[in-house]
């Protein structure tokens, strides 16, 4: 083999702390290395051109690039060598930037380390062989998980581009958090008026199949060919018959059911349609409170239903869908403020969450848009907003900012004044975060036009006294203690991943970050991709974000899915496992452990069982390789011999050194 080694200075990023010329010189002495050079920017056009030229001039059949992380530029250099006529897999990278120059201060040690990393890359490359990829057909269908505004946007964009979409929503209606909101900032326009038409579009789009009241059971397969098993939960109402007339909800005698949509502000019936604009507008029975389902008596809804849609024998069912891409848009949940003992631990009726307040403000909400204290139903005159409840508080395990609370506090204080003109709002805040277009002006309006009083400081205690709530906190600007006698306290509870997010991440084989939000592939350059090909992210499931950001990300994720599925066939990564039938003894341990069911049992020429890899299904993890005691299963480009060569390349130099 003839190997060329290309050492990148990365400007001064590498060169300042690694003697690149020396690395190149040392590399020239490695087995099979016949060319070595160093360049200022290997990834630049002249840099890539020098690789191409050297390949031709020196008849190279493999290239080591010592530069930044392969996670950054492996694809770039694969294209470079391909342009020069080599197989794209005949490149290995030595990461001498992130793993060397950026972390080590001593130039000599760094240079030695860089030489070693080039040595192992060359040792591995010697055992690389050209790989040719196979192509496979893609399913031109997208699964969108979550029917909030981000999911709806993603579904609509995909469908408009001609892709079929399965939109799965856990609740009985799409709309998500946005549907719960009364108004949106900074325009203070009606949330439902903005969202409603989009929901209708989604429901009526011929390419979108809406699966409400359903959850993802599991997802198998790989990019272009996922199989999702979707659980349709038992709603006890035949959606194909239900017209959403609502007669059943009027007759239902079980009226003490927790009102999920209204966040427990008021109660609802066991059979329920969450809100008038629900899409699909279908009733769903809550089995925990339904008298028929719990006690076997009643059935009032069935009697009144004009279409006979009620079916108490309904069972959940699993529906299988084959899709080519998945967009996760599962949104967010809210922090449980009962963890704040000092704020009453959730036991003070007049300390409510911002989303409960939002429902109260909503004309279609449980109070008909009248702001009432939960304890006595009276209109509050003094309303205190407390920001960062479960945000920016490492002690509560919530170190991050929830992004949009500052803005909705401003909005809610404005709305409070609109609803109760003689009211006074107070806001306890740490910082006011209003960086987007029109946001800063909006918070100023709250203060200047609506007289909301902003107090910079944390609230230390909330306790009831004489029918009021005493909110005690610090005013850090004045350096004094403040006490406000409030009628109602609204806690701006922080944002957290939905409870099912972790499980869904496992099913989709994507990562979550330290806070449980789905992790993007690259924080800057691949913000909607994940490390699992074909799975994209939209909305607050990736991190707290407001409506415009969620909508933008929904479109972005859709764009990624569209460009992926625009191709008829995808290229399968050829770095897959292969079974050498001469070595296979047929113990099928590999079959047992393969997470992708990519290895099957066949019969060898000797009539004995042998394992065989289904290449299109293999994802290249290499678990099989380790359980095969005789090394019959080998993962291309991560073969035993390659890893052993890397180990030996490192140890052998050291052994030789220690002999001295």
């Amino acid at each position: 083999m003839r190997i060329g080694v290309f050492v990148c200075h990365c400007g001064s990023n590498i060169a300042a702390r690694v003697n690149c010329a020396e690395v190149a010189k040392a590399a020239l002495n490695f087995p099979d290395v016949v060319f070595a050079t160093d360049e200022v920017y290997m990834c630049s056009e002249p840099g890539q051109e020098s690789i191409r030229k050297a390949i031709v001039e020196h008849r190279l059949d493999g290239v080591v690039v010592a530069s930044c992380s392969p996670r950054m530029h492996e694809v770039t250099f694969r294209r470079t060598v391909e342009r020069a006529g080599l197989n794209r897999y005949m490149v290995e990278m030595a990461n001498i930037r992130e793993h060397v120059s950026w972390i080590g201060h001593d130039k000599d040690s760094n240079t030695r380390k860089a030489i070693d990393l080039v040595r192992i890359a060359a040792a591995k490359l010697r055992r690389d062989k050209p790989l040719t990829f196979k192509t496979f057909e893609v399913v031109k269908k997208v699964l969108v998980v979550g029917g909030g505004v981000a999911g709806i946007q993603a579904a609509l964009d995909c469908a408009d581009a001609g892709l079929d979409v399965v939109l799965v929503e856990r609740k009985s209606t799409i709309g998500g958090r946005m549907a719960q909101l009364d108004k949106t900032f900074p325009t203070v326009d009606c949330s439902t008026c903005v969202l409603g038409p989009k929901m209708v579009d989604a429901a009526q789009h011929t390419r979108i199949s809406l699966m409400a009241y359903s959850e993802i059971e599991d997802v198998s397969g790989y990019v272009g060919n996922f199989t999702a098993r979707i659980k349709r939960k038992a709603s006890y109402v035949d959606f194909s018959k239900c017209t959403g007339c609502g007669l059943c909800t009027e007759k239902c005698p079980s009226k003490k059911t927790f009102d999920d949509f209204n966040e427990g502000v008021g109660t609802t019936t066991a059979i329920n349609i969450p809100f008038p604009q629900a899409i699909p507008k279908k009733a769903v029975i809550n089995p925990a409170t339904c008298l028929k389902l719990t006690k076997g008596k009643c059935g009032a809804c069935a009697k009144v239903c004009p279409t006979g849609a009620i079916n108490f024998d309904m069972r959940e069912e699993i529906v299988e869908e084959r899709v080519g891409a998945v967009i996760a848009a599962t949104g967010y949940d809210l922090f449980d403020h009962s963890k704040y003992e000092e704020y009453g631990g959730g036991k003070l009726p007049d300390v409510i969450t911002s989303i409960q307040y939002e429902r109260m403000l909503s004309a279609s909400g449980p109070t008909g848009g009248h702001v009432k204290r939960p304890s006595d139903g009276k209109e509050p005159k003094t309303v205190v907003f407390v920001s960062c409840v479960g945000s920016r508080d490492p002690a509560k395990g919530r170190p991050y900012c929830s992004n949009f609370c500052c803005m909705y506090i401003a909005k809610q204080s404005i709305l409070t004044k609109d609803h109760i003109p003689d009211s006074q709002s107070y806001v306890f805040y740490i910082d006011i975060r209003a960086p987007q277009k029109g946001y800063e002006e909006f918070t100023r309006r709250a203060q200047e036009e609506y007289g909301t009083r902003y107090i910079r400081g944390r609230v230390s205690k909330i306790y009831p006294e004489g029918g009021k709530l005493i909110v005690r906190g610090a005013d850090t600007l004045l350096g004094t203690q403040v006490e406000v006698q409030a009628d109602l306290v609204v806690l701006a509870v922080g944002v957290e991943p939905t409870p099912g997010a972790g499980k869904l991440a496992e099913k989709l084989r994507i990562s979550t970050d330290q806070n449980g939000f789905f992790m993007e592939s690259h924080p800057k350059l691949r913000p909607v991709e994940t490390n699992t090909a074909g799975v994209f992210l939209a909305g607050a499931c990736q991190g707290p974000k407001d409506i415009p950001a969620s909508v933008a990300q929904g479109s972005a994720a859709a764009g990624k899915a569209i460009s992926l599925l625009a191709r008829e066939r995808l290229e399968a990564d050829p770095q897959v496992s292969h079974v050498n039938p001469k070595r296979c003894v047929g113990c099928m341990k590999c079959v047992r452990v393969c997470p992708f069911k990519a290895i099957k049992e066949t019969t060898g020429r000797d009539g004995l069982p042998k394992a065989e890899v289904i290449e299109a299904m293999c994802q290249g993890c290499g678990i099989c390789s380790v359980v095969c005691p005789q090394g019959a299963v080998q993962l291309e480009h991560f073969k035993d011999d390659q890893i052993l060569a890397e180990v030996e390349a490192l140890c052998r130099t050291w052994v030789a050194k220690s002999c001295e």
Partner: protein
Amino acid sequence: MSDVGGKELRIIGFLCNWCSYGGADAAGVGRFSQPTDLRIIRMPCTGRVDPLFVLKALVSGADGVLVSGCHPRDCHYSEGNYYARRRLEVLKRLLPMLGIHEDRFHYTWVSASEGARWQQVVTRFTERIHELGPMDSLDPELAVCAIRELGGENGQADQPAPASGE
């Protein structure tokens, strides 16, 4: 911090491409300085890390071996690190019976976002290997000794080359 105790030891890291290799990248991006003894071998998944690679490294002259992958539940291939956890734990408990200090081997989970944690892992592990010192050596390989006799280590054989093999 780059030079622990003045002399480097041979430490090999097997890192999963998706999490810990990215974590090490993140540490680099964050300029979290670390000792330079560690040499990282990139693996597709900790599920690919055969415990025998670790043993091979240790008997071949490595003073310490570090394996790092995705946190449980975060495996890119959904299950690789679960298998790895079992194998590597068994391996860790085998080492003392071989007369090899179990601290020469460590396995851990570092995600792609945990650059600071990676810095901590590398720093502590390197310090620990330096506390243990170089590994007891076995007989040097024949090849190594033979090459040394030839003076070939610097690529400068001391006799004129017979033209064989060309």
